[in-house]
């Protein structure tokens, strides 16, 4: 009974997370329909207002409508997060599987992964942006690098384990080629841990991208990202706390939702893989 209740609570938490994510997705897809104002529209007369019937979340220091900017900000958040996830998972799989399967390659690749992981993620991202310059694509590349190494590390460990499993040996003895074993038998078994990893990557990459925006080295300031909004509004927080509050709440909600869903997914994961995820770090 207790276990049943517990799983029910967990399902509710996962449901709450999913609903939040669905809302954010709708906001991103239908931004022009949901937004009440032009997110870029300047209106100096109505600057730094509190929430009202016309401006639900108030206005910023240029008189722009915060609600509309938050709605459009969802687009950037999802595009950025998806970019990091796709890029880090794709290369993470490639490096991780090959390292796990071919020992010599793995030895070299994992040392490199160790080295990259010994640099603080944000500092590494900053260094890359110093070289590449700001902009969404460069932010995705810079932030994704760190998550790529984490994914590669996890996939490497799992592949090592899978390689020794009886079924892989059976297939090999039937004369299957390496490529076939990798593509048809190892990769499909990595799917569920990969989905968990993707969820956590999404959550933590959002925090990092918001941090870069806040530091003023992310996407260009005129683009309404949640991090940019807080960064620009920070000097006005005493006059209009809405500039700080609303974009921030949306960042927290989105990250929290991904974390909640990720936690439940991980707990329901194949127990053989569960211990790989105890140390998910930003």
């Amino acid at each position, binding site marked *: 009974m207790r276990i049943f209740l517990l799983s029910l609570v967990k399902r509710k938490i996962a449901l709450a997370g999913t609903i939040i994510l669905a809302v954010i997705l709708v906001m991103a897809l239908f931004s022009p329909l949901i937004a009440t104002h032009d997110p870029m529209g300047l209106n100096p007369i109505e600057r730094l207002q509190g929430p009202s019937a016309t401006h639900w979340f108030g206005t910023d220091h240029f008189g722009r409508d915060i609600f509309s900017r938050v709605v459009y900000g969802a687009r950037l958040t999802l595009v950025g997060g998806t970019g990091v996830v796709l890029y880090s998972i794709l290369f993470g799989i490639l490096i991780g599987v090959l390292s796990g399967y071919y020992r010599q390659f793995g030895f070299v690749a994992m040392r490199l992964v160790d080295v990259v992981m*010994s640099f603080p993620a*944000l*500092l590494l991202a900053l260094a890359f942006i110093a070289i590449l310059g700001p902009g969404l694509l460069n932010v995705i590349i810079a932030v994704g690098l760190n998550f790529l190494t984490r994914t590669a590390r996890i996939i490497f460990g799992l592949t090592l384990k899978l390689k020794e499993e009886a079924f892989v040996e059976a297939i090999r003895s039937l004369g299957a080629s390496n490529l076939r074993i990798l593509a048809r038998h190892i990769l499909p078994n990595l799917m569920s841990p990969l989905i968990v990893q993707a969820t956590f990557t999404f959550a933590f990459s959002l925090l990092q991208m918001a941090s870069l925006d*806040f*530091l003023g080295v992310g996407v260009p300031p005129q683009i309404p990202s949640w991090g940019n909004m807080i960064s620009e509004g920070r000097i006005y927080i005493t006059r209009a706390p809405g500039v700080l509050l609303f974009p921030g709440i949306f960042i927290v909600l989105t990250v929290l939702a991904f974390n909640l869903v990720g936690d439940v997914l991980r707990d329901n994961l194949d127990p053989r893989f569960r211990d790989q995820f*105890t140390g998910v770090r930003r």
Partner: protein
Amino acid sequence: MLNHVVKSLLSTIPTFLLASVLVFSLMHLMPGDPAGVMLGDTATPEQVQALRSAMGFDKPIYVQFYRWFAGMLQGDFGNSIFFHKPVLQVIWDRAEVSLFIAFWSMALILVTGIPIGVISAVWYNSLTDQTCSGASMLAASMPTFWLGLNLMLIFSVVLGWLPSSGFPSVFESGNLGNLRYLVLPCVTLAAPNSALIIRLTRASMLDVLKEGYVTTARAKGLSEVVVTMKHVFRNSLISVVSVVGFTFVGLASGTVITETVFSLPGIGRLVVESVLRRDYPVIQGIILLIAVAYMLVNLAIDFCYTFLDPRIRIS
């Protein structure tokens, strides 16, 4: 045991070498001429040429690496392009705040994270556990800068209890009271990291609670306190200690944000300023120093293992 220590010492050497190569190549990944990029659009061709030969950019790449690496081993990280001072000097001038913040935040993380994690695990699934777990999940999902700005708004602006920004040097003024400038930054920096330690301590305690030797200890009739502290806590500490190294890296990233939020003149702020100024030698220097510090922390953790894990101690 000595074997173990020597082994971990030796294994840091290749990592350090690779890290140096990576940091060195960062500078050379830049599209175009590094000297031109550093000086910006307003520089004359003569200035660019002068910087190029001063930095040795006209030499073959391996010569450049050798020079840079050899200099670095002797503590010469080159000169800052913006400050016209040695990189190490520039970093040292900013070190006070960052070291204070790092130390106090780490203390705060350990003092809050481990006990709360233990309590959560001991009272598994109770209201206390759920509150702690929920709160730590929330704290881990919060952007550091947002938390910092909110704390600043509440405690400095509205309540007026603590200063909102800046930090007058303790060493120059001799006034320990200046440390109150660091209360909000430390809490900001500690919160998300502490949350992760809570989650980890709880998870590893729960894992150990399932072990056979815990059942044995209970069956022997030991009191619950002895079982928890001596058998469960001690053994779960091993996996917690291994994460402290990661926490250190998390702190280094966090200082960048926290120092920006609270306008503190520290190393983290220096990184951001250097990125905006394209002062590459400084960026290189800081990143490499932090990577080295991380390796040292990991070495220290390895030594801690030898005390915590009897299997290593005896072999």
